[in-house]
């Protein structure tokens, strides 16, 4: 596998991303050394490459990527994987607010805690939080799956329209248009598949403790339930 290292020391995000996009055409694996929690790393990367960020990333790591696979070895700031359409963003540490904001596809996996508004306005794709997620997780969610292995904060699923939020821990409170349901066998099978593939190990009996947050209605603000798409 062709691999290259890029040293981020003393470089701007624009310089790093320019080098990254150039390298992505020739190499399969790119390692960013000394990222120093820099913002916007790998923004708009649309090649199917593996990018290893050897430390923490700042805001918007992996924003608008398509098919790139990004692995952050440290923490991330606000909005990791924002508006991603396909690919992967894996973060070994914690992340700030807006994890996976507006994603259309792909998978975001945070190994520790996430801030608020995880998965806000997401349309599709999967977000996994290994720890807890803050308030308004799934705000205006329009599709896809969020899986929280810890607790979920206030107003979970606020104004959720479509999609499902799976929670293993406690739900502090539900937002408008959100309701809690028990998981079924299909849910458990899907959860097992996705969690195991991203290295989250749970005892079999733990899967039965999941509950899911789904919309009360797909037309909560206007229109008729008979018009639900």
């Amino acid at each position, binding site marked *: 596998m062709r691999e290259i290292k890029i040293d981020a020391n003393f470089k701007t995000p624009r310089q790093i991303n320019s080098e990254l996009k150039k390298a992505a055409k020739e190499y399969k694996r790119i390692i960013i050394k000394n990222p120093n929690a820099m913002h916007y790393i790998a923004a708009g990367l649309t090649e199917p490459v593996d990018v290893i960020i050897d430390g*923490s990333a*700042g805001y918007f790591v992996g924003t608008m990527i398509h098919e790139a696979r990004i692995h952050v070895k440290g923490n991330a700031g606000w909005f990791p994987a924002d508006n991603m359409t396909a690919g992967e963003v894996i973060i070994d*540490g*914690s992340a700030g607010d807006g994890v996976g904001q507006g994603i259309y596809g792909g998978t975001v996996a945070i190994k520790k805690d996430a*801030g608020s508004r995880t998965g806000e306005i997401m349309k599709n794709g999967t977000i996994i939080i290994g720890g807890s997620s*803050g308030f308004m997780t799934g705000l205006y969610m329009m599709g896809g799956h969020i899986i929280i292995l810890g607790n979920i904060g206030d107003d979970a699923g606020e104004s959720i329209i479509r999609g499902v939020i799976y929670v293993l821990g406690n739900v502090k409170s539900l937002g408008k248009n959100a309701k809690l349901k028990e998981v079924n066998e299909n849910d458990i099978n899907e959860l097992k598949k996705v969690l195991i593939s991203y290295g989250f190990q749970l005892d079999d009996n733990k899967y039965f403790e999941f509950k899911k947050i789904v919309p009360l209605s797909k037309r909560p603000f206007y229109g008729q339930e008979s018009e639900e798409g």
Partner: protein
Amino acid sequence: MCGIAGVVFKDKRIHKVGDSLTKMLDALQHRGPDSAGFAIYGGLGLANDEYFLNIEVKEKPGLLEKVKDTVNLVTQIKSEEIIPSVENYIIYRCIINLESFSELKPLIMDIDRIENVTVLNGSHYFEMIKDVGTVKEIAERYGTKSKLGTHGIGHTRFSTESIVDRYHAHPFQSYIIPDITLVHNGQITNYWKIRDPLERKGHIFETTNDTECIVHYIADKLSENYTLQEALEKSVKDMDGPFSYVVGTPNGVGIAKDQLGLRPGVMAEDDRVFAIASEEVALREVLDTKDVEHISPGEVRVYEI
């Protein structure tokens, strides 16, 4: 978008707090290019009745003498220092004796009446450094890296509403109680609702900057025997708008974040250091950031030594 930071050395001993804050704020420079400031606590070493004045004076014949005469009418100047700044201003700093803290604000108001002169701050337990320019420029101008202390707070400013000048650089200070400072990222949208009752209680506002309003609010609460934790918790409920702010007192630092979590705040600590900042990149300058905590919406954190 401003950058805020605070650091506390847990052993209560004197450390290079100025150097730590300079590094933290330089890492946050992208969040605000207009001005920057520091409040460094515990390193002044003043006697009980000594106070430190920090005054901007336009370079104009006879003006500095007028400032000194005004101070000398109240008390003798014990030592002094002049630091050249930008835009034809010098910073005049002196140490004076006062019988009590209550004499400080009236003296500051006397000095402020002189045209082209503004008292940036007066303090007993902390040194304030604030000016226009980048963090590095200001640190160089004031020798900030060599400043010692037990803890401190700092700010790099992106002005959104009020004027860019030395006085409006953060930290802001209140004289309701001694030695309280505050740095802020955000806006207080119910500013007048907060300010009005404070003014009715007789507290003096020098600007229409919302940061000044917050520091008076917190100082007022502390004067009513709230703990810093309690004062910050109350402030989060009373203030509207997007904000995160860091308060400095002689005992430590605290952070508060708005209930919708619209401004950032992260923290990390180890056995040696407690640090808070707008972004992880600043925390990395003072400790290992393997475990960074994101301050939750409406959350308050305080560390006192």
